[in-house]
């Protein structure tokens, strides 16, 4: 028990800093959309980190869960009139349900898993955007939930989700459960021999990661309130979440948060100040990352044997 107390200090500080920064930020910077989108990508990078950082499964189609959550939340708002927070929770459950259906994909590994997951996300997209489902999903004509538009509430909800997903990452990082995940990431057979229930634990992480993406997607949709399927199923969302997580360093708690914050601020800064150089600067940065920091920013510390959360 004594040993576990110091280990909680790190996560508590990270959570407190996150909460403080994003609660105070609107006082100094009024572009609510930038702050909310930054939290969205920090949350997604962290959600992806839960899966990729701890199990080694890289979900190229992570946006499928995000879009599912966005649409499930919107449909619950439209057809049930339930309180919006219940609808967001429903978005997470819907994404987890899709993840459960796609559970057999976990039998694949490496690039095969990534590509199959990507294909699955596109299937979900085409189903949602299908003309014949116009009366339910709005099909290609998009969906509108203006009746619940409340930017301040959606901002706070996104912050709460960011804290939850970060707390989960900290749990994975510090708990026996997380150690089991790391063991199966390195060698699933040995991990199974050591008593780790490989299938069950992998499935749990898969579902949790999907549910988080779903709830983040639901909150994002709540904030947009008028959107087309392409806005929440664009592959750019997956690519950004992956790049941001890798830039910071997967398998850590701080890495994906730092990666997403730094790169998103840079993305936004270049977009506003020098859009003509956007692709050049961003591309060069990613090439540099792959060449010199393949394990992300956090490796600068871990190389020097500095223990990071």
């Amino acid at each position: 028990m004594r040993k576990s107390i110091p280990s909680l200090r790190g996560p508590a500080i990270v959570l407190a800093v996150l909460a403080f920064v994003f609660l105070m930020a609107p006082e100094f910077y009024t572009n609510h959309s930038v702050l909310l989108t930054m939290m969205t990508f920090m949350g997604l990078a962290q959600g992806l980190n839960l899966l990729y950082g701890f199990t080694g499964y890289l979900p190229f189609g992570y946006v499928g869960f995000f879009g599912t959550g966005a649409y499930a939340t919107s449909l619950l708002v439209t057809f049930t009139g339930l309180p919006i927070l219940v609808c967001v929770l429903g978005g997470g459950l819907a994404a987890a349900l899709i993840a459960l259906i796609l559970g057999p994909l976990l039998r694949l590994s490496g690039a095969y898993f990534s590509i199959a997951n990507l294909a699955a996300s596109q299937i979900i997209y085409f189903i949602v955007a299908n003309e014949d489902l116009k009366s339910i999903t709005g099909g290609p004509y998009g969906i509108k939930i203006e009746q619940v538009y409340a930017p301040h509430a959606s901002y706070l909800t996104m912050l709460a989700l960011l804290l939850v997903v970060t707390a989960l990452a900290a749990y994975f990082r510090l708990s026996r459960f997380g150690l089991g995940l790391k063991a199966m990431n390195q060698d699933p057979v040995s991990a199974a021999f050591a008593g780790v229930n490989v299938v069950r634990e992998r499935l749990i992480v898969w579902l949790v990661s999907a549910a988080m993406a779903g709830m983040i997607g639901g909150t994002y949709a709540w904030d947009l309130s008028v959107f087309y399927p392409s806005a929440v199923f664009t592959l750019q969302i997956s690519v950004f979440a992956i790049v941001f997580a890798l830039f910071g360093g997967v398998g850590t708690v701080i890495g994906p948060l730092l990666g997403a914050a730094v790169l998103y601020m840079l993305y936004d800064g270049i977009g506003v100040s020098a859009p003509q150089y956007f692709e050049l600067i961003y591309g060069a940065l990613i090439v540099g990352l792959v060449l010199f920091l393949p394990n992300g920013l956090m490796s600068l510390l871990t190389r020097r044997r500095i223990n990071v959360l």
Partner: protein
Amino acid sequence: MIKALKKAWLASVMTAGLVLPGAAMADTATAPSVIKIGTLYASTGNFAIASKGQYEGLEYWAKEVNADGGVFVKAFNKKIPVKIVAYDDQSSTSTATTLYNQLITQDHVDLLVADFGSVLTSVAVPLAAEHKMLLIDPTGSGANFFTQKTNYLADVSIPSSTVWPLPLAHFLLDQHIKRVAVIYDSNDFDASQAETLKETLVKGGVTPVYYHGVPTGETNYNVLLHTIAARRPEALIEFGYPPNDIAFLRTLSSSGLHFNMTFTIFPGQLMKMMEKTVGAKAMAYTYTYPTPPLVATTDTTYGPDTATFVKDYTAAKNEAPNFLNVAGFNTGLIMQDMLGQAPQFTQLSFHQALMDMSGKTKTLEGEFKINENGAQLGELFSVAQLIPSGDTNKIVVVYPEDKATGKPVYPAPKQ
């Protein structure tokens, strides 16, 4: 007594000295040095070609008015230069969301103009309403936006897509064409047109023999065309975006199939580009919506007529304008008229000015007419046919009769 008078006089002079300059300067002190117009454009991605065309038209308008000393702003009773603050959203809705917010909350623009099309406009609609800003919407014509009364949205340079095909439907009924096939892309822009067309035809006693949606990315029309041909339609209407129209016309040309009438949207907007990619021969006798500058408006009540605009634009840019340049320029013109009429420099006053202009203003795009939901009901497109003329095609307006410049060639001869 004299002392008291002196005191009173001094006090009067001092008071006047303090108050009068303030009163005299009230207008100039509150008038901004420039009118900031915030907008987005896409330099890359799906909407780049169209978005840049629209943006270039708006930029051209700003340059022209600034050369003339700026726009007349009634609220300040003087001309003020305009400054365009623009960011690149790269055709991404998430980037567009943050940049629209940037324009509103950081740059504090006076007027907010949306990027091209419904997708990139959609994210600005709730943001503008939240910040109580009037969103000037040049080309976002999605039916979804205009479902309720609003003071914060105005579609200014393109009719709401639900009304585009009305003249086309009436043309088909007038021609007594009974067998109509409709193929459309499954997106807001195209499907809402297909729905209006079908509804109007059915009211006129014509039920389409084929009515089918395809994904927006569809480029393989071979099987679809043969399926449609099996229904023996007299007229085949295809609603798509430029890549769809190009693929459709190419496939039709190489398929050996022939229909008495074929309609697509974009030859009337991007004629030169489409002739280059599809070939003039493959486009011959195709019907389309003719748009400015391919059709001319001469009796404008505000701004230049089409011929003057084409001449000036071509001289300034060394290239002839297309419809999207016209749409961008027209957006500027409508804002210019609005600023010239709004008695106060507030968003609500701007909106009221637009409502007052509705039905009374005619620009090079035609009649400006919006409803209380912000939808554009004027600027209606006619129906035209591309008639071969040497190595190219010329646009002949065939409907409605009061705008017609020639008779339709129906049935279209085999090429």
